[in-house]
């Protein structure tokens, strides 16, 4: 038993190895936790367990051939990675995209955002110890998976977007199914609130825990819902709009410190819940506005992209996803880099973890909604 407790410059402390196999490090995260009993001194994230050289693979694959690999950047929100790659290559090429394709992209992305946020809030509740919201969230996500499966044939790694459009038009009857799902889903968000959001123990576990002030959030480069929870009203979809987002009306939920301080874990949770409702609104608008027409522009089979470089920003489920692509004029990318939200979120966990309890670390990890492959790529 002597190695359980050891001395170092902090005095007597417990060194805990949390992960890469641990029930609440979804995927393969690892933290080395220095703790004094239940109170943590530090939790040091150790990344790299899911590194798959996706950026290097981009240099070896043809432009369209890389599309299936982008799914693996973030398997919970693969549609956004598809979108990022497609938009980046299109901008390099100066390729126009048919309007119907743009709407289909937005619909598929927003469906995926709902699915991803459902996982985020469901697992968050589960990590806090409430086991029921998770199956309810998964139930809704299953329906979305079914819908997307009908759209593109896959349930997780979609490979739906194409350079110059999307792979398939929506199938017959899909519109009705989507609308039926939205009719069902919008009240479900309220049901979810009744189920867990207002639960006093849940609030006590999350409010004022892991507070990220706005300056700190900006310093550490937080993006997306995590940044908005800290009080910054910023959304790429609205502020640096791409695709057809300028034509759509939606609100950007911002953390207001409902039950605690602005930027606490509860705000990060609540921003995601509200975003799901906004996504549902966006999908409805898309269906209303979507024109008939082609769903994919004609592109050459052997695609050559003019030399140049481009930076594309996409509002993924985990926040701003930046694609930096360099072309040397050939059939393959010269360099590709993806800057993802989870990587930055991992960085902020270490300073936040000082002086909080082990149970709060779990809440912290869950509230930042980090996904292992997105960190390591």
């Amino acid at each position, binding site marked *: 038993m002597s190695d359980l407790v050891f001395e170092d410059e902090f005095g007597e402390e417990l060194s805990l190895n949390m992960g890469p196999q641990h029930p609440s490090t979804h995927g393969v995260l690892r933290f080395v936790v220095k703790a004094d009993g239940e109170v943590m001194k530090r939790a040091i994230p150790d990344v790299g367990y899911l590194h798959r050289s996706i950026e290097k693979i981009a240099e070896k694959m043809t432009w369209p051939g890389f599309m299936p690999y982008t799914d693996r950047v973030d398997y919970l929100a693969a549609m956004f990675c598809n979108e990022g790659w497609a938009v980046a290559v299109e901008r390099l090429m100066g390729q126009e995209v048919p309007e119907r394709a743009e709407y289909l992209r937005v619909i598929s992305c927003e469906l995926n955002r709902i699915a991803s946020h459902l996982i985020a809030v469901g697992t968050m509740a589960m990590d806090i*110890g409430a086991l029921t919201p998770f199956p309810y969230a998964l139930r809704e996500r299953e329906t979305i998976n079914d819908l997307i499966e009908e759209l593109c044939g896959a349930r997780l790694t979609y490979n739906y977007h194409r350079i110059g459009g999307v792979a398939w038009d929506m199938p017959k009857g899909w519109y009705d199914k989507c609308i039926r799902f939205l009719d069902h889903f919008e009240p479900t968000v309220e049901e979810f609130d009744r189920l867990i959001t207002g*639960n006093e123990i849940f609030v006590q576990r999350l409010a004022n825990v892991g507070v990220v002030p706005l300056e700190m959030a900006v310093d550490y480069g937080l993006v997306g819902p995590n940044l908005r929870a800290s009080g910054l009203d910023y959304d790429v979809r609205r502020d640096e709009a791409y695709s057809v987002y300028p034509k759509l009306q939606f609100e950007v939920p911002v953390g207001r410190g409902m039950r605690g301080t602005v930027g606490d874990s509860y705000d990060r949770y609540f921003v995601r819940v509200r975003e799901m409702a906004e996504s549902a609104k966006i999908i409805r608008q898309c269906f209303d506005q979507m024109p008939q027409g082609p769903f994919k522009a004609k592109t050459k089979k052997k695609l050559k992209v003019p030399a140049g470089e481009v930076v594309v920003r996409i509002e993924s489920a985990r926040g701003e996803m930046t694609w930096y692509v360099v072309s040397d004029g050939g059939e393959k990318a010269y360099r590709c880099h993806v800057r993802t939200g989870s990587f930055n979120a991992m960085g902020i966990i270490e300073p936040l973890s000082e002086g909080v309890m082990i149970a709060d670390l779990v809440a912290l990890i869950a509230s930042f909604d980090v996904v292992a492959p997105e960190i390591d790529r």
Partner: protein
Amino acid sequence: MRAPVQRTGAQTPAMRAAPVLRTCNRSLSRVPLRAPAMALALGTLTLAAPAAAQAFEVHDVEPARVYVGTTLEIFGTGFPADGTYQILFAGDGGAGALFKGPELNEKDTPVAVCPDPARCPVQLALTPSVVRPDRLAVVIDRTFMERLRGDGRCAAGARDCDVPRVFLGDISVIRTAPGGAVTAASFEYPLGAGGPVRPPLRLELFTPALRDLADDTARALQIGLAEDFLGVKLGDAPGGKGVMLAEVVAGGRAAKAGLAKGDVLDKVLATPIVDAASFAAALSEAPGRNVILRIKRPGAPAPVIEKGVDLSDYPVRPPPQILSVLFVVGACSAVFLLFIMPFGGIVTWVERRVWARMQSRVGPNRVGPQGFLQWIADGLKNMQKEDLVPTDADSVLFRLAPYFVFLAVIGTFVVLPFGRYLIPADMNIGILYLTSVVALEVVGVLMSGWGSNSKWALIGGMRSAAQIISYEVPGGLAILTAVLMAGSLSTQDIIGAQGGAPWHWFICENPAAFCAFFVLFIALLAEGNRTPFDLPEAESELVSGFATEYSGFRYLVFFFAEWVNLYVIGAVLTTLYLGGWQLPGPEWWWKGEGGGAAGATLVLYVVLAGVMAVVAALWLFKLVWIGMPRWLQHAVGFPLFAAVTAGAGALAFLAPSSWHVEALRLIVFQVKAMSIVFICIWLRATLPRLRIDQMMDMCWKYLVPIGFGIFGFVALWVAYAPGWLRTAMHALLAVVLFGVIGAFFWRAWVNLKETGADVGLGARLKLAMTGYKVHDERWVRVGSMAEHGAAKRS
């Protein structure tokens, strides 16, 4: 388990002169007129002049509560086998109370069998026989019972004679030696008049027989040991003095020491030998190189010979007392385990099914009907798994820990009263014993946490220790509150002090008691590591907490204990605050005046018939499901239904009525306990987990002060609350209780309506029977994936 008894002994000069029974000082001081009355009572028996008579003492009398057929046993020292005995029952106190009815709350005045002992001196005498030197026994017969009750119910041919009577006074044993000498000793039953009355221990009745069997077995073992060691066969000596060597094996130790066949041993060193058992006992107690055996050899020149044997390598074995205790413990625990196992198992199944339903899942439904046998499958599976002990784990602690936890939980069943007679042991410290034995759990959890050599397990163990020890304080206060209201620690007395109707339960006794119920509920949840207090095994934080490193059977033991504990939570709350097994309404309605088909029979009949109807209907629907022709369903199903129902009804009518009442009590207890279990499952499906500091805050900052406040309030209430206030409060709190329950069902109904489901009875029934939803076309509101998939494929 009994309080120290007063005994008086032997013969004194005073008794010889005038055979007066000496009773204990307490009784004497309270009832100064007792002694002359007893003298009168004994007058007819003791006319003969006292001669030299052997003295004896009475130590204990069991049981206190007698039925027809009960064997009343009187324990004492050295009752001589000759002579005649008589037992006299003497009332306690001026009221002349001798026997009374079994209930405290029953407004049953004690049966004044003999209000004036002077006028009916030997009315209550029984003639026992000596079964062993230390024990007299007498069977209570109908005639005696009828004399106790005097209402004709125990007369020959009457059926309803099974309401027991509790003895409250003194018991005296008078022996008349063959020569006419009279010796007497008395025993005051420790529960005086007015004290708490304990229900009988029906299950305890088998232990004297078991104890005798165990004693005999142990004795035989010891004799065998002596025979093997010496190389002899022992037999009875003629005249009953000493032991005879029936055979002597050539070359054995006895043969070498010079003992021969036919020798009679009557002393080992200075110890006299009466039989083979005492010989074996003397051998085992007399180790040494040269132990002198005194032998009588018939026909030899010198009738008494002394031989030395070497006993220095006589095998050391546990003394027979330990063996017999082990035997009894082993037999009891086997029965006990078989009794408890289904509780834990069924609760796991209930939890998984209910929980799944709440989570919009199906849950286990493959093994057995509706997955009912899943717990057996899980148990068998776990037993087949490898039992891993981590490297560097403290192997002993690691291996022992699950059994401590297990012991703590099943130990509680000793005092859980499932019915008036269905209790393994009604200790007078019952609830104290329960809290103590439950506290053993923390030992096991700490052992597993420390012994696993795992940091997760260690943190889990520490959390658990902190949690269980902290919550024992408010939990103990809430238990004490119930004890305060009942005036007893015995679980049966606590139930006896409550009534059958909800307004007679302790939860409705006063507002503070109402709160105490919830304090106890929260504390028991915390002690049982149930959500929202499941920190010690918080999966998302500590993997599996203290059980992280366990596998196979030991893991099974941990979690079996956990689920048994879930049931224990329900049982304890039911016992302390929800009236236990008490049936609402007066006892006579349940028992019936004629003894046969009365309330209990009727209700039991309805319950059984209902269960059977559901069983048969389920079976029918299953037939529909597998596509059997309809005529065949009717041809097989209805006769089956009719036969089963009729059988149940016949059973209900044919069995004796007390069996019905007891069965109903068991049902009432289980329904209450399982309702609490359901609430625990519901909480688990609803609530997140507290953080450890929040959990500690809740205990020490809120529950402990509240607990003390409740305790103080209830103490004042018990002492000063006037009757009208109590009645009003009972009514008010009962309304609140029904309101809460009603609100639950109303809310459930509203939610059901909101889902758009068909809430008609037929639809709900079909749903329950088939497991399929009947509103496919409206899947969007309650839809599951299976339905959606089906819609897509079509």
